[in-house]
């Protein structure tokens, strides 16, 4: 069973932007794309741990603010020729509320 924690509502996240938080002992980034979808990833770029929450969000990807790697929001995987992946944080929406999945699941992922 996953435990879900309410971390805020969709309107808290700027469109084409992100907010970050500490969740289950990990930095987590919650993104909102131009089509109003929400995604959650561990806020650590697979390259050199850049804070993805501070990147530019375009389409369903984010460009890392440090060296511009492009990370897919659905999978956390680096795009193009870059190789690497940051864990996806279990996320679901209940109406406008954003729920993140249990810390246990995160600790496994990390």
């Amino acid at each position, binding site marked *: 069973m996953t435990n879900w924690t*309410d971390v805020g509502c969709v309107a808290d996240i700027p*469109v*084409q932007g992100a907010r970050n938080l500490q969740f289950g002992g990990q930095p987590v980034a919650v993104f909102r794309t131009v089509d*109003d979808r929400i995604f959650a990833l561990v806020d650590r770029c697979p390259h050199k741990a850049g804070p993805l929450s501070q990147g*530019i969000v375009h389409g369903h990807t984010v460009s890392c603010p440090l060296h511009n790697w492009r990370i897919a929001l659905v999978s956390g995987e680096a795009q193009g020729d870059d190789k690497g992946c940051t864990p996806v944080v279990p996320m679901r929406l*209940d109406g406008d509320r954003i729920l993140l999945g249990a810390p246990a699941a995160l600790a496994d992922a990390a």
Partner: protein
Amino acid sequence: MATVGTTKAESDRGLVVIGNGMAGCRAVEELLEREQGRYQVTIFGAEPHVNYNRIMLSPVLAGEKTFDEIVINDRAWYADNGIELIASDPVDAIDREAKTVTARSGRTVAYDKLLIATGSDPFIIPVPGKDLPGVITFRDMADVDHMLGAAEKGGNAVVIGGGLLGLEAAHGLTLRGMKVTVLHLPGTLMERQLDEAAGWLLKSALEARGQTILTKADTAEIVGEHHVEGVRLKDGTLIPASLVVMAVGIRPSVKLARDAGLEVGRGIKVDDHMVTSDPDVLAVGECVEHDGLVYGLVAPLWEMCRALADGLVERHSGYKGSVTSTKLKVAGLDVFSAGDFLGGDGAEDIVLRDASRGIYKRVVVKDDRVVGAVLYGDTSDGGWYFDLLKKGEDISPIRDMLIFGQAYASGGGQGDPSSAVAALSDDAEICGCNGVSKARVVQSIVGGAVSLDAVRSTCKASASCGSCTNLVEHLLSLTLGADYGGARTTKTLCKCTSFGHGDVRREIVAQGMRSIPEVMQKLHWSTPDGCSGCRPALNYYLLCALPGDYKDDQQSRFVNERMHANIQKDGTYSVVPRMWGGLTTPKELRAIADVVEKFNAPMVKVTGGQRLDIFGIKGEDLPAVWADLNAAGMVSGHAYGKSLRTVKTCVGTDWCRFGTQDSTGLGVKTEQMTWGSWMPHKFKIAVSGCPRNCAEATIKDFGVICVDSGYELHVGGNGGIKVRVTDLLCKVATEEEAMHYCAAFTQLYREEAHYLERTAPWIERIGLEYVKSRVVEDGEGRDALAARFLFSQRFTQDDPWAKRVAGEDAQFHQPLMMAAAE
């Protein structure tokens, strides 16, 4: 188990329906179609009407239809089928033990099977004033009557919510003569259905019809004494209104079901035959949740009603969920959307933008299947795409032609676009913007224009909106055959466009474009919202072209500019306050020292530009740091920005025995003139008091060397990876002239360089002679450049830190949980 069903005749079975709406009545219709007289049907309706077509309320509001025209089943239908309609009497309670329902009037009716079809309740945002008279929702005929009554008096209406419903309400009210303002919280209208590009087109079209559309508009309160008088936004704006329509969303109406102890999630939970957790209670329509999903459109209801009726007569098809598509019912605005329109991982966008016809089409393809589509302006192929989507058909054989629509894609013979171009007649128009015929294009290619750029500059084809770029390229390859390399000589701005930086800048000015989505539409961007390469560039180009008018797009800025601080490798930030000309005071030093201690900054460093850099500040502490620095009179040093960084100085005549002029004073004045301006890249200035050049002015973007007879002005230096010594621009006699030339040069660079191109490569690309011809030889031009620079400075010389300290964009600094904890 139907307890009475075994003893009574089949036809005596009682089916009670709660909700005389679209789903409730359709379910009954489906049932009657399968088996007449199996159930004795009673329908309760809260509204006083017979069953009408709710989606046609919009045309009724707009005056395109009357109520009578939208009735689905009239009184005769109820009578003919022996259905008892109990209208204007909402059911208040369900007793599942006794198997009865009780309505408000006290009437109690027993059932064998109960069908709940209560639809949705409009969502009311919980702001002060929401209960004032004049604040209504858009859900039923009573709401429409209310709006019509209000519209008769004229005046202002505010519609909160720029979704399907809100826009239809706004449209109707506009046609009824009201002055309508739509408030929409997200940045894009109908953001659940449309991408940014289509949303922008829609917004422009509605504005052209006289509506005011405010996106990113957050309602704070509805004001008024005894009746609404207006709406106040969180940013303080007050919009007067005598009518406020809330159309921000709907929630499944589940209260009855919940009170009766049925299983409820977001909606009433049902299985594939619309049976709830109680086998004798069914539910259908917007009030249900099937397989985790709730629906707010009619198409799925029809499928649900079929499954429900099949189940009731013991046929077993079952409901498998629905894919939906949406159309906006506003005359003359064709908008269509279906499926997943930003496909994410592994999905590809096929985009067609035709600026002159106002058309935008985007089909999202994944694994050779259509998974989503957004169409604006021409929606005639919506049904076809939706069909491909639902059937999951392999589209690889028609992929190249998919975006042109069904007629083209199934045309077979036209498969090769090159041969189609070859078949065009000589006088066929290739470039609509510039009226260039095929013959004219071929003629210039034969005449030596062997690249796209050359064609663009000789005959202008494809030089404006660019939509004919493909045609021109086909002509190039047809005409030149193997000689056509296909390669473009100038680099495109990024992979989202076929235009280079220069073209984009020119077109922004020439066509008077005003927003990023507009540029993307008019210049046929191939992606829905660009990438991290083009968005910051476009944001800058617009900012430069429209000083004071253009609203900066924070989400198109790199983090340093968004946060007004430098991000460092550990994710903390460093902060550099401005120290004019490198001068400082005890008070400033004390403020900096205090900040360092208070926020435990691990390091302070003197920068190469003679400023102090405070390292290791956490993102959430930045506003507090700035507040303290602001309090000591210090403003942002813009050390993070594509903007003027520092003006480095030496001590000059005041102290130095070699100094010939007041280099420090000139540096301070120059910094005060230039600070805060956004640039294509970082920009540095220095002023040295004599040719010994202690301020290293000859490796700056703009450098001044003071000499006995005046000032030598130097440009295009770079101390970075590739060191470049400045070129001498000219010599001037006075401080005023030095500053005037500085302003003119800076503006030329701001207006003409590519984004992320520093002055050094820029000058190497365009040549020093060109810069001289604009800044030195052309006096009038110089004055105009300087005037434009100073004009634009009027809007940018306010400290971004102070705004943040005052609370602007606070969300960039707070972790999300804090919001959740409120």
